[in-house]
């Protein structure tokens, strides 16, 4: 050990370095070796999904896509957000950033959907079982404090360079708020209401689907909102491993020292973030009982 890493601390001769790095590498090697068939399959499948939806979105003329999004935003979140969507997406189109924007959008949406599919059940589970809570919460703390870049490294051996690896890292990075806020939303349901549901003879599932989840929706939506924002920020970082999209525009600008181009891509990300943020926030508010 000591030969391999030069130590400045003279007391280091007293102890051998713990081989934490080697062990983790071994673990990852082991996982890649034995679960390659699984990761390969997931990889294939996801790649197809991403490709098809990107192509689908690309094949439509931008004005049509902008109109569809504007109508969606208007319907879901009101007139102002609708207008903002037209102007924002129009600007991106004008800046010749249409294609990377759509790529990024797809990555974010797919990653968010996966994060929700994973996050809500885990959130429910940790809210209902104190045992699960004690196990899951420290893991979430760990996942959230670990620098996001670190997830990129093991993603590559599992899924290879490209969008799927980026997706994997993004989901891990973005799933904690979905779990946490689902858990919080369910725990927040007043005890008296749970008692009322029990007093009428509700089963556990009836309580969950008729009372706890409906009442937790505003909180869960706040979690999903955060998940989307985290996914968006991670997608930019994930450009380092070839995720494409607006992130790679930023990277290109960094490498070529073109601050103007960098800002253009940055603004595009901000606009996308704002549209997604407003829409999800509004959905959350609409579902709160104290409307």
């Amino acid at each position, binding site marked *: 050990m000591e030969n391999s890493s030069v130590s400045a601390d003279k007391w280091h001769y007293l102890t051998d370095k713990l081989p934490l790095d080697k062990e983790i590498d071994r673990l990852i090697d082991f996982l890649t070796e034995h679960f390659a068939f699984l990761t390969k399959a997931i990889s294939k499948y996801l790649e197809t999904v991403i490709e098809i939806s990107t192509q689908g979105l690309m094949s439509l003329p931008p004005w049509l896509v902008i109109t569809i999004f504007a109508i969606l935003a208007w319907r879901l979140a009101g007139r102002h957000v609708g207008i903002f969507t037209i102007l924002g997406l129009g600007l991106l189109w004008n800046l010749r950033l249409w294609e990377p924007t759509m790529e990024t959008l797809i990555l974010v949406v797919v990653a968010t959907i996966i994060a929700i599919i994973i996050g809500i059940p885990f959130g429910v589970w940790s809210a209902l079982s104190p045992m699960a809570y004690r196990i899951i919460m420290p893991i979430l703390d760990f996942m959230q404090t670990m620098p996001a870049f670190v997830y990129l490294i093991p993603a590559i051996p599992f899924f290879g360079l490209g969008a799927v690896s980026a997706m994997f890292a993004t989901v891990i990075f973005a799933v904690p708020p979905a779990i946490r806020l689902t858990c919080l939303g369910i725990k927040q349901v007043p005890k008296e209401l749970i008692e009322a549901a029990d007093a009428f*003879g509700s089963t556990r599932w009836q309580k969950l689907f008729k009372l706890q989840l409906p009442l937790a929706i505003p909180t869960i939506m706040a979690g999903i909102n955060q998940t989307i924002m985290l996914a968006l920020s991670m997608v930019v970082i994930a450009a380092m491993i070839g995720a494409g999209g607006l992130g790679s525009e930023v990277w290109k600008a960094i490498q070529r020292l073109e601050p103007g181009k960098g800002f253009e891509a940055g603004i595009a990300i901000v606009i996308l973030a704002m549209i997604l943020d407003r829409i999800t926030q509004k959905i959350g508010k609409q579902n709160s009982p104290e409307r």
Partner: protein
Amino acid sequence: MEKIRAVNVTKIFTSHPQRALTLLEQGLSKDEIFSQTGQAVGLVKVSFDVGEGEILVVMGLSGSGKSTLIRCINRLIEPTQGQIFIDGNDITSLDHRALLELRRRKFGMVFQHFALFPQRNIINNVEYGLEIQQMDKLFRRDKARQALKLVGLEGWEAAMPNQLSGGMQQRVGLARALAVDPDILLMDEAFSALDPLIRGDMQNELMSLQARMKKTILFITHDLDEALKIGNRVVLMKDGQVVQIGTPEEILTTPANDYVKRFVENVDKSKILTARSILTEINLFAYLEDQPRDILHKMQTNKVASLFVVKRDNTLLGIVLAEVTRQAVERGDKTIANITESQVPTVITTTPLIQLIRVLAKWPWPIPVVDKENKLQGMIVNQRVLKALTKGGE
């Protein structure tokens, strides 16, 4: 058979109650046990039963274990020891499935803070109990509408709970409980969060609903006036123990101990006490065939100013007054037929004190208490009424 029967129900809030139970056996108090073990004692050997169609009110101060008790009855809280029988079946041993089934079939529950589901509109709230029993949609709509009508909230089906006033919300709570057509209503301080006027209305309404529906009701309150007003019988609790069980009148007239006595001191007794509890027995009568001279003699030797006139079978005919009798004697009358005043106000044994007072205000003589056949049972004299109102009953 009793609808509900609780036998020695004890609740310690912990998963390891052994030590607390032992200390309880040794006769330690709730506070002592808490300071020694850190475990909260909720109930100590509570036993009572509730007859079919009866309103039993459980009354006690905050922390006396009322909510714990009512939740033990449908096992929202598991009793640590003791049994609970519903229709004669011990429910403490039921498994989860059977317990759900029991709650669905037998119980309706109303909560202090209403506990309406905020995301559901009124009709969907009322339907809840039927919905989880997977009743047919049309059927449960219909039932829910009937229940809403019963509590006087037709036309509010589509409103959301937070659009309703407290009193209306609790009507919805009541309708929700009634919609499943339960045998037993559990009401935990159902009216405590309402302001006094609305509260009085709701009490009256509950009583008139009860007169029609004949449910078995376990009603919790911390308000003795409320307990005495609506309860057929009242259970008084203190520190998780039953202090006294009895009819409102029994509690007022024969308090079990000083604690109860202190409680009942400030109650408005005029509405709860009835003629029965303060009537004076009569052992002097005037019979129709008596001569005025004999009656006057009877009055003078016993120092009374009036006598009730009865037939031999005790049927009330009227009253004779000393003054008038003396005049009759002087006139030389041979019967009392002419001097018997038959226009006497009468009351029955269940007439509340407050009505007696009204009669007393207009009638200076004792008031006869009669039964349904107009047979004389006793009389009410001024003095006893005043005494009853100022002291703890007798």
